[in-house]
């Protein structure tokens, strides 16, 4: 627990750690703070893996409950975001395995509420992303949306750094083809 107040961490990370420390003491307002900071990011991350709104929301819920129950076990060796995304990923994979066993939840595609002309481009890009294998799409999301380094992605996904680079290499080739 020595890393709660790690001075080398950035301001955002220090705030995340302060919230998590309060969560470990049972402070529900802090859990709400963590939910506000990470809920939608986790939803979007999981949606890129599962393509299912119900399941993505379930994973957000499970991740927050896991954070509530397990905040005291956060060792501080990673960013809070890496820890939470790791939990979310494990929960998402559990749900995928359940789905493969036939316990499928009806799919509801997340909609894009913005009526602006840019919607068409967004849909085109989302469609291109959907065409990627799951493992490549995940690396694209973590790189460009979450802004993680390849080292952080390797730690989050528990894969070698070379594999992260290779997945991104193949993903960018496919996306470039789909979007030109």
């Amino acid at each position, binding site marked *: 627990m020595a890393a709660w107040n790690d001075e080398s961490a950035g301001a955002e990370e220090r705030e995340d750690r302060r919230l998590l420390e309060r969560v470990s003491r049972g402070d529900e307002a802090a859990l709400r703070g963590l*939910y506000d900071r990470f809920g939608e990011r986790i939803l979007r991350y999981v949606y890129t893996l599962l393509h299912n709104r119900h399941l993505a929301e379930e994973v957000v819920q499970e991740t927050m409950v896991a954070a*509530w129950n397990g905040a005291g076990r956060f060792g501080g060796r990673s960013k809070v975001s890496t820890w939470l995304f790791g939990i979310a990923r494990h929960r998402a994979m559990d749900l995928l395995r359940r789905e493969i066993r036939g316990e499928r939840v009806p799919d509801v595609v997340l909609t894009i509420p913005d009526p602006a002309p840019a919607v068409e481009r967004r849909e085109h890009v989302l469609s291109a992303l959907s065409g990627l294998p799951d493992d490549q799409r995940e690396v694209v999301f973590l790189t*460009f949306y979450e802004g993680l*380094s390849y080292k952080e992605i390797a730690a989050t996904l528990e894969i070698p750094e070379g594999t992260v680079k290779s997945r*991104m290499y193949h993903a960018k080739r496919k996306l470039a083809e789909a979007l030109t």
Partner: protein
Amino acid sequence: MRRCDEVRELIPWYVEGNLEGDEARDVAAHVATCAACVRDVAEMVRLRADVRDAIRGIEGLSEKVWGRVRERTGGRRLAQLDVGSFVLGFRLGASMVRGWVPVRGDLQVLGRNIKLFERRKGGSR
């Protein structure tokens, strides 16, 4: 000096500003003198903007998700007793929620909680 193929596999993180030390310097030095890799950087900047914009457009969370989290976390934790191990254990917990004290017992199997009982306002369930 790094080769083009070595640089290109780092360009996604270069445009994110997520390379450090020697890697960042090497990629910047290579890109400054290589027209093909400059084109790759420009393509990556466009791709990054497209991906971020598309993902931001995904509809956000509904408030009911927080409601379900709230139901399962049950307010400020007053006491918690854990018996057993990660493989099989039992957790008894009491919380404080706006002046009343729900008590809940969970069986824990391989780190997952299975609710056994919960005493809440208005009776057990």
